[in-house]
């Protein structure tokens, strides 16, 4: 398990393209995410053999087959568990978990929150299209209330999940959001996520062209998108709008949208602090939704905590320091033992436990 590897030849996008034919529906948002990933990975300078993609079940989960790295296409909802075991065995690998709103938030919701809470050094990409695509069009945990689907012909009666709120509630150390067709923005977000130590949670709004087309039109249609997106930058005031003339201001304990000018300047606006330990601002951003608010994109929160494997390895080192490297003989003898000699009449002799393993 070496921490560093000798830098190999510079890789290009093509090095990360596998020989498998991509089988998503034409026009699927997944193509854009795959392309962004293959374009950005060479920038990391990590050799292919040190990268692993792990997925569950769903359209998004076909992702590993198309990446020329190590990969596992596992079972529904469970990818974070396999990734956790892999990371504990070899923390030097860069592990990506690719999941969706059904895989990650419905059947696998439990694993997602526990993975985030443990801060396992993984990158989790949650493709959110607010629908079940692979099973052909049933509502998902992120489908909006009232959404009519094949399994909710009269409209969904369920409150939908907000993935960023869930990540925050699970004490995630890195939370970001981007959109499938924002190629450049996604590349930047993925890079920041990859470099973060701990679980990086990235929600990617992704369009399902067959079963939930237009779900993200307000963020992708050129006519309206700039008025609906708030690009977050650490240390910068929260300005948005086609003409950068609007902003987010704090009014009491609530954010509000204000028009710049008429005495309101950037100095009056909220300034983004991605590194704040205290999560109030992140919660505020998580809850901002259209039509009242623009959608915050970019890194919402990034704080430093020890990773799971770091803590686990530290305990192993401490155990070795205290008791020495594992010695089977000592282990077996670590109890009250007694000797039986070949001499039949000799009494059995008590030995004390060796007291250490």
């Amino acid at each position, binding site marked *: 398990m070496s921490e560093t590897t000798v830098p190999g030849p510079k890789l290009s996008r093509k090095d990360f393209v596998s020989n498998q034919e991509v089988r998503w529906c034409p026009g699927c948002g997944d193509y854009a995410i795959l392309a962004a990933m293959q374009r950005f990975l060479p920038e990391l300078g990590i050799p292919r053999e040190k990268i692993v993609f792990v997925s569950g079940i769903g359209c998004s989960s076909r992702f590993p087959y198309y990446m020329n790295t190590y990969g596992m296409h596992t079972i529904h909802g469970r990818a974070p568990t396999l990734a956790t075991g892999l990371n504990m065995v070899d923390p030097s690998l860069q592990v990506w978990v690719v999941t969706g709103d059904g895989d990650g938030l419905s059947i696998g919701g439990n694993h997602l929150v526990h993975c985030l809470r443990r801060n396992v050094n993984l990158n989790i990409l949650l493709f959110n299209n607010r629908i079940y695509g692979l099973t052909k069009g049933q509502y998902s945990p992120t489908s909006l209330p009232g959404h009519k689907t094949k399994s909710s012909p009269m409209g969904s009666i369920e409150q939908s999940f907000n993935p960023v709120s869930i990540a925050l509630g699970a004490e995630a150390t890195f939370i970001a959001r981007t959109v499938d067709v924002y190629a450049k923005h996604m590349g930047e977000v993925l890079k920041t996520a990859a470099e973060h130590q701990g679980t990086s949670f990235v929600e990617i709004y992704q369009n399902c062209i067959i079963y939930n087309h237009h779900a993200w039109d307000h963020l992708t249609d050129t006519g309206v998108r700039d008025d609906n997106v708030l690009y977050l930058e650490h240390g910068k005031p929260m300005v948005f709008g086609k003409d950068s003339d609007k902003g987010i201001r704090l009014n009491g304990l609530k954010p509000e949208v204000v028009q710049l000018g008429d005495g309101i300047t950037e100095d009056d606006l909220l300034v983004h602090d991605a590194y704040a330990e205290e999560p109030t601002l992140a919660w505020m951003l998580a809850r901002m939704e259209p039509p009242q608010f623009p959608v915050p994109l970019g890194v919402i929160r990034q704080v430093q905590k020890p990773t799971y494997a770091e803590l686990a390895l530290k305990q192993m080192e401490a155990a070795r320091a205290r008791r020495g490297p594992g010695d089977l003989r000592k282990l077996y003898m670590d109890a009250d033992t007694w000797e*039986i000699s070949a001499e039949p009449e000799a009494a059995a002799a008590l030995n004390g436990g060796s007291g250490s393993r």
Partner: protein
Amino acid sequence: MTELSVLTPDDPVVEELESVAIRFAGDSGDGMQLTGTQFTNTSAVLGNDISTFPDFPAEIRAPAGTLAGVSGFQVNISSRDIYTPGDAPQVLVAMNPAALKANLADVEPGGTIIVNIDEFTPGNLKKANYDASPLDDGSLDRFRVVKAPLTTLNRNALAGMEGLGNKEKDRCKNFFALGLTFWMYDRSLDTSLHWIQEKFGNKPEVAEANTRALKAGYHFGETTEEFRTRYRVSRFEVPPGTYRKIMGNEAAAMGFVTAAHLAGKPLFYGSYPITPASSILEHLASLKNFDVRTFQAEDEIAAIGSAIGAAFGGAFALTGTSGPGICLKSEAMNLALVLELPLVVADIQRGGPSTGLPTKTEQSDLLQVLFGRNGESPIPVVAPCTPADCFMMAIEAFRLAVRAMSPVVYLSDGYLANSSEPWRIPDPDDLPVIQVEHRTDPDHFMPYLRDEVTLGRPWVVPGTPGLEHRIGGLGKMDGSGNVSYTPQDHEHMIKIRAEKVQRLQNTIPEQQVFGPAEGDLLVVGWGGTYGAIRSAVAAAQGMGLSVAHAHVRYLNPFPRNLPSLLGRYRRVLVAELNLGQLAFIFNGRFGMKCEQLNKVQGQPFKISEVLRRIQELAR
């Protein structure tokens, strides 16, 4: 029990016994497991053969004094080879009326019952559903009853000790009772005194109180006129060596660590706490200096998922649970099967179905581990037969998993997990080393390229340059591993996985038989029933019956000589703690009609139960 007429307390008669079974019973808070363990340790050190079985309620602290809260620990000590904790205890130590009521039916007629009469109050009798005190109504006439005011005697012994209230003092009364049994069976106090110092060294007043209670109990035995006889169980002659006492789950944990350590691999254990498997997690969590990585997962599925991830990463990967957990793991077991990664799944069976009897033993998961998954799912199964055998079969499970690149089930049970016996400590240099090869050669590499002999695929560890590959749970093509829905590919993969498991037959030992190689009756068992069956068969052989015993430790694939062996006896009796699961397989697989002995009461077989059935069948 021998009746003797002329006795003085100063001069008790010592009677030599071959073996004796003692059961300690009280409230689950009374420390009966500890008392039994102390008696066992002392007896083991004296050189007796020992076999123990704890029987405790699922509730940690049921209401004091009630039947639900009764906790018991039985130990059989012997000067000859014994295989079980004994059918019927000759001695019962009952700390309260509920403990008496719950255990009375098991005591051997004529046996000794020591009761703590201080606890036989109207309130406690009512809690135990007694209308009248059993001490007065003649219902115990078949037994020798020793009525001792243990609570009072213990308090008197601790009188004047500063800093301890009656509650703390009463906590020592189990050691008073222990001291008394030590006197009755002529045991030294040394091992327990040593233990008290180790355990309570930093709490001198507690150490002192327990020491006093133990000694007072011993002296009470000496001075009271209640006991007219002492008993001695002599040393058991065993092969020379260094011995210790071992419990099944402890042995399993050490076996798993040994397998990984000798192979030079980290051991990864993903598990979710569940009775009676949790102690494996606890043992392994304390062995981090052995490169053991334990992961207490959020649920059973995460536990096995993490282990599969660890196997992909090149570790010796293990997950452990009991029957209900196997239900939850079954989808992931199939993933491991299709990914063809080595993984050991430990199932420590308990009473089912559903939550069932968490703390009681049963053998009712056999069909589940063999067949309880979607699709054609051949998974090797090994089953240890004694607490010490748990060590060897744990190593064996990993050997088969690595060889076949397959999940393997280690099928133990609550009885094996918690019972103990002496274990001759092995020399690690004499233990089998599992050879592991991780392919690094990219030349002509394909992830499902198979070894011609084992049919196993290469185990490639991420981080190996040039061998990047993807594996998944979808149908696939052999060799390349590419996703394929082609009918022929699907059938080929199904058949080759089955063949791969079947080929393990070439590396597992032939089935051994205890007794004649042919004859009237073969008694077949598996798992933790070994001791009861072996003892019953030995007794039947002593009666001149033509009976043999085969205990099957490899349940899939079976040893290759098994079918022919079964055919050499006029009748085959399959004895198991379920309604006939192995018998069902024998009948189906070998076209035979087995006789059956079945019990599903959450309790192990008694020797007498097996013997009775043998006598019916082998005339």
